[in-house]
C-alpha cells in the first residue's frame, strides 16, 4: 500500500547541484508533488514536497537523503504558525488563499491553522501584526 509523506528538504550550498528529485523518482519509485522550491546552483535552497510511494521505498529514500547532508523535516511545512503568539485577531484570514488560517469557531472566534491545506504561499507572514506566522527557513 502506498503512503504520502510531506517533507521539507533543506540544501546547504554543497548539495544544490545534485539531481535529488530525479533520483527520488527513478531510484525509489516515488511520486513527487512540489509545493514550493528555491534551488539555485551554488546557493542554499529548499524544496517542500509530498512524496507518495511504498513505505519501504520511502524509508530507503530517506536513508539516501540522509547521506547527502540534506535536512529533512517530516510533516513539517515551510510555514510555521506559533499558537502562543497568535492573538486570534483574524488579520491573516483574508490573505490566506486556501483557508488554512481560518476561524475554527464562530462563537468564540478562535483561529486555527490547518497545516494540510497550507500551500506555503507565505502571504500570511507580512499580514500578521503579531509575528505569529513565520517561514521555517
Amino acid at each position: 500500500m502506498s503512503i504520502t509523506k510531506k517533507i521539507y528538504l533543506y540544501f546547504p550550498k554543497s548539495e544544490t547541484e545534485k539531481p535529488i528529485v530525479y533520483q527520488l523518482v527513478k531510484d525509489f519509485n516515488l511520486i513527487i508533488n512540489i509545493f514550493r522550491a528555491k534551488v539555485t546552483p551554488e546557493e542554499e535552497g529548499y524544496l517542500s514536497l509530498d512524496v507518495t510511494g511504498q513505505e519501504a521505498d520511502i524509508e530507503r529514500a530517506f536513508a539516501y537523503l540522509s547521506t547527502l547532508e540534506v535536512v529533512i523535516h517530516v510533516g513539517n511545512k515551510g510555514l510555521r504558525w506559533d499558537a502562543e503568539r497568535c492573538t486570534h485577531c483574524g488579520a491573516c484570514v483574508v490573505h490566506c488563499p486556501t483557508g488554512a488560517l481560518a476561524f475554527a469557531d464562530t462563537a468564540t472566534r478562535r483561529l486555527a491553522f490547518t497545516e494540510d491545506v497550507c500551500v506555503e504561499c507565505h502571504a500570511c507572514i507580512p499580514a500578521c501584526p503579531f509575528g505569529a506566522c513565520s517561514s521555517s527557513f
Partner: protein
Amino acid sequence: MIFVILFAGTRTMSKSYQSINEKIAAGKAVVLTAEEVIDYVDRKGLEAAAKEVDVVTTATFGPMCSSGCFLNFGHSKPKMRITEAWINDVQAYCGIAAVDVYLGATQLRHNDPANMYHPGEFRYGGGHVIEELVAGKKVQLFALSYGTEDYPRREIRTMVAIDDLNQAIMVNPRNCYQNYNVAVNLSDKRIYTYMGILKARLRSMTYSSAGQLSPLLNDPLYQTIGVGSSVWLAGARGLVYSQGTQHTSLVERSENDVPVEGAGTLALSANMKEMLPEFVRGVSLQGYGVSLALGVGVPIPILNVDILRRTTVRDSEIYATVMDYSEDYPQKTGKTLGRFSYAELRSGQVELLGKKVPVTSLSSYYKALRICELLKAEIQSGSFLLSEPSQPLPAAQAMRGLECVGPER
C-alpha cells in the same frame, strides 16, 4: 414634584456603587459578561434582570497606538541626569526628571529603515520593548548626559528587567475607541495602513472593534464610565485618569445612541509590574509602523434598568462606517462608502458597491471574551471593586481639525 420623583423611584429599580461593592466584597455579586447579558435579559426581562444583575463585564483587545509607559531606573553611582536614552535601541523621551523616561509604543528602533524600502517591515519598536518588559525579560538601557556638578555621570550601558525598576507605570493617552472606521482600498494597488494590508480594488475590508463586548459601546452615553472608573488594564488594576485624546461625543449615533464612528476614548493608567504578558503585545504593521496591542476590561455597574438595557446591545445593532483608505481617509474628503453592522462584518463577507468583499479584523474577539471572563471571575471572588467616577466624560464635545496657516508674520 417630590411626590412624582418618589413614585418613579418605587417603580424603577436603582442601586448604588456602595451597595454593589458590598455585594462584591461579600462574594455575592451577580456578574455577567457583555455577551451573557444579552440572552439573560431576553429570558428574564429587563426589570427582573436589573434587580438581579450587579455588574456586566466588557472588554477589548487590539492595537492601541496612543500607549506608553513611564519608567524610573533608580540612580547609578555616581548619579546621572539622563538626557537621552534608548531601551533595546528604541529611544525614550527624557525631558523630565533625572532618571524618569517615557517610552512610547510607536517609537521605531534606532536605524530602522522605516519605509525607505517600501513597504517597511517594522519588526521591533516601543510596543515590543513594553511587551518584553512585561514578560520579565532583560532589556538594555543605554543613556547619555551632558553631566552636571550634582549629576556627573555621562554615560550608562546596562541590562535591566522590570523588577529592577522603581516604577513602570503605563500611561496611555488614548485607548478603547468607542467605535471605529472600517477600511477598504479602492485604488489599483495594495496599500499598507494601520488597518493592516488592504488589497487593491476592494478585495478586502478591515474593521477593528470588539463590537458587542466593547466597553464604550455598552455604555454609549458614558453613564457609568468616567474619570476615576476602575478598569482592568492587561490584568493590572488600573483607572481612567482622563478623557482620552480625541474624545468626541458629538457624533452621528444610531437610534440606540450608539455612535457609528470613532466617538469617545479613554485615557488609562496602571502598574505595568502587575500586567499579564498575554495581553501586552508588540505589533508590526507592514508599511506603517510599530504599535502595542492591549487587553482592557471595564466593569459596568448595573445601577438601573436603563444602564442594563444598554449593555444588552448586540453586534446586529452596532454599525460602523466604511472609508476608502487610499483616498478619502488620507485626504480627509469626508466621503464614506457605506455602513455595516458588526454582525454583518463578522460573517466574513459583505456586499459593497456591487461587489462581494471578504472582511477581516484587527481586534481580537477571542481575547476580549477571555478578558470579560477573567474580570468576571475577579469580581465574583471579591478581589475587584468598582469605583464611582469623580467626573463624567465630556458629553457634548466636537472634534477639531488642524488649520495649517503658515508662520505668523
